[in-house]
């Protein structure tokens, strides 16, 4: 297949279509709008549905309806819009419907701005809507991964009957890079739970209501077991120069690319740092971080985020006090320069 120079946001749509997605319902918002543009352009060409919904809420509920029939469906938005989708996501998770939602994070709270932030971590990774549920969350850091991880998100969503979120920032959505597109997916798992209105489906029900407390508790326990299985089987991460690292720097999305460059510069100066990048945020690479915390050569951790420090909580839980965990964050849409990052990492190492 062709190597193309495309925006991350466009790679999402091409990846989704290659993954068999044939329904896109969305509402425009910067910096995610190119996803809707590309879906509007390509969905009709493959016989799929593109519909600009009247609201983010309507869009996620249209996805709910489409997903209920067993087809692969998606929507995309950016932070303020994602907040509005939380109701729908809770229903999707409760009814165990697979779908993919892309969140191209921007600055908040409120209207904030359209520059990149990572301040949706909590509302995306921790569930966000009401109830004891979790989303599967993947975090691409390149245009290539915008394609690949969107395709993976569809597979994981179907496999576990759970919403899967592609969580990234305005940079990864907006930047163009070469992408090697894979062949289209041709084999899909049978969805014997879907409601298509046909005889064989008559026994199925798409619903999130369980009136009896015992029934609802059992349903919740089943969901928790599912998340446990996901945690045991689906963690994906990237490690860079960690073999002998004194200092483990952790970041995802655009930040991981900055850390990568900073690590190289620090290594040239003889500073032993390495990077761990969670590619899946739910499941979070807790086990691996815990392992690293137990290694003698690892003296401390540092988490870098474009937020007030949200993922750092999960790192702290994983490290569980075994080693110090430092944090450096920028907010408002500011992205640290490499020089700044190198300086901050050194500062954090010195204070130990």
């Amino acid at each position, binding site marked *: *297949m*062709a*190597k*193309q*120079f495309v925006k991350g946001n466009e790679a999402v749509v*091409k990846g989704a*279509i*290659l993954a068999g997605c044939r*329904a896109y319902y969305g509402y425009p918002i*910067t*910096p995610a709008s190119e996803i809707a543009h590309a879906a509007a352009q*390509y969905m009709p*060409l*493959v*016989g799929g*549905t593109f*519909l600009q*919904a*009247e609201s983010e*809420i*309507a869009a996620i*509920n*249209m*996805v*709910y*309806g*489409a997903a*209920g*029939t067993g087809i692969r*469906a998606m929507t995309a938005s950016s932070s303020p819009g994602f907040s509005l989708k939380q109701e*729908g996501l809770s*229903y999707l998770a409760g*009814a165990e419907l697979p779908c993919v939602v892309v969140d191209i994070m921007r600055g908040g709270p409120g209207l904030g701005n*359209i520059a990149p932030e990572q301040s949706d971590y909590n509302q995306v990774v921790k569930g966000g809507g009401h109830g004891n549920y979790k989303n599967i969350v993947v975090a691409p850091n390149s245009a290539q991964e915008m394609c690949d991880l969107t395709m993976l998100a569809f597979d994981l969503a179907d496999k576990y009957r759970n919403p899967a979120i592609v969580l990234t920032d*305005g*940079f990864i959505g*907006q*930047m*163009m*890079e*070469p992408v090697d*597109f894979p*062949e*289209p997916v*041709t084999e899909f798992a049978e969805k014997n739970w879907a*409601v*298509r*209105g*046909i005889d064989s*489906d*008559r026994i199925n*029900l*798409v*619903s999130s*209501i369980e009136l009896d407390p015992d*029934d609802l508790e059992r349903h919740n326990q089943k969901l928790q077991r599912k998340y446990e299985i996901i945690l045991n089987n689906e963690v994906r991460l990237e490690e860079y120069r960690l073999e002998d690292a004194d200092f483990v720097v952790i970041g995802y999305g655009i930040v991981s*690319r*900055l850390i*990568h460059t900073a690590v190289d510069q620090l290594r040239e100066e003889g500073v032993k740092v390495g990077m761990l990048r969670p590619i899946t945020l739910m499941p979070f690479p807790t086990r691996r971080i815990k392992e690293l915390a137990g290694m003698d050569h690892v003296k401390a951790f540092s988490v870098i985020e474009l937020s007030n420090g949200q993922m750092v909580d999960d790192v702290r839980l994983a490290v569980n006090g075994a080693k110090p965990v430092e944090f450096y964050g920028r907010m408002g849409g500011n992205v640290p320069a*490499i020089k700044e990052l190198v300086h901050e990492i050194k500062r954090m190492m010195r204070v130990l």
Partner: protein
Amino acid sequence: MSVNILGKSKGFYDRYERRPGTNKEQTHYCPGCGHGILHKLIAEALTDFGASENCVFVSPVGCSVFAYYYFNAGNIQAAHGRAPAVATGVKRAMPESIVISYQGDGDLAAIGGNEILHAANRGESITVFFVNNAIYGMTGGQMAPTTLIGQKTTTTPYGRTLKNEGYPMRMAEIIASLESPVYVERVMLADTRSINAARKAVRKGIMNQIKQKGFSFVEVLSTCPTGWKMTAPQSQEWIKSTLVKNFPLGVLKDIALQVEPLDLSLNLAPSSRVPKLIGLEKEKLDFDPDSMKISREIDQEIKIAGFGGQGVLSLGVWLSEIGMHEDLQVSWIPSYGPEMRGGTANCHVKLSHNSIGSPLVTNPTILIAMNRPSLEKFEADVIEGGAVLYDSSLIDIEPTRKDVRSIPIPATEIANELGNTRISNVVILGVLAGFSDFLDPAVVQRVLPLIFKKRHLLEINLKAFQRGLELGRELLA
């Protein structure tokens, strides 16, 4: 024709197995509630039309949240007010199915006001049954958008007032005012005669969908003895004496006979054709990519800035694509959003031998300034020994830095000479290829046809490139 309210239609399950508890024979509705009657009318119609087999019933939040206990259909339960959106997703995925959105007044007229308006306005090919009993039944008798002035509810204990809550909403009239709906009628369930009229409306609403006519909306004035604190007979009387005066019965719109059936068929492309359809077929290169590899020592970090419309972003994309064809790592990122729409634009391009970390260019090796504000704003950031290329046709000042190479290019003038102002960016591309060692002119000339696929565009752009190239070589000399 009389309606047998007691008999069970085939449109219902034989036993209501999904209903919790031991009573699997009867509905959960209160005695005298209109839902049971309307359910019956719908189930009958679905059975009579043979539509029960491929029906998907979307249950809302409200007393009818448990409609899935009863209807022998595909059942999907929706969030409060969202049934029309859910029904949209279902119908678009399975156009051959009969999709019913069944909603109460709080669901449809309050929290779901937006969803119903837009589903109606799109003319979604669904049938909506709107149960208007002027009260929230399920949640404990609170005010609905359709509650009457003076009506006492648990949230209007002194009666609904104009001053505080405004007038009750007439949803059928609102829906009928839209262009797309094909059929809108208001009926009531108050006596045998009105139930028969309701029966006809229900059947029409479903038949319209079977015939693919579009969006049908049936508002049903219905009893809520519990919420109204009345007996069942009193409730029926109250509909006739009071409710109907505020919500007049009748057909508000019916153009089903005049409109042509909609073509709802899905035309899904086979997966083998998908790559071609979404533009992923391999480009045919008329050259061997391996022959294009040229070695350059230095990674380039380029910032391009100017007015919107000067091709600032495009120039960046082309540079990146050329780099990609040269097997370099490349990235491009624009300044996006309102600042772009405000008239200025800039983008950052990286061409590297190694994987690219940040796509942002803070200190460019090359600045391409296409207007004066850009030159003034970014000149200071260029690295020592870097280059500043600027459109000297438009910029009436010179760069002040002495430690960078200043390259004035009368790009707009040359573009105008060639007959198209918009190709000034390609002139600059030519200059870059002429004086620098990181763009091989031969490569650029081979990549340009991939960018400009229309012959006349390619010709003029090749000319612009050539002029720029000559100028660049002169500069080098």
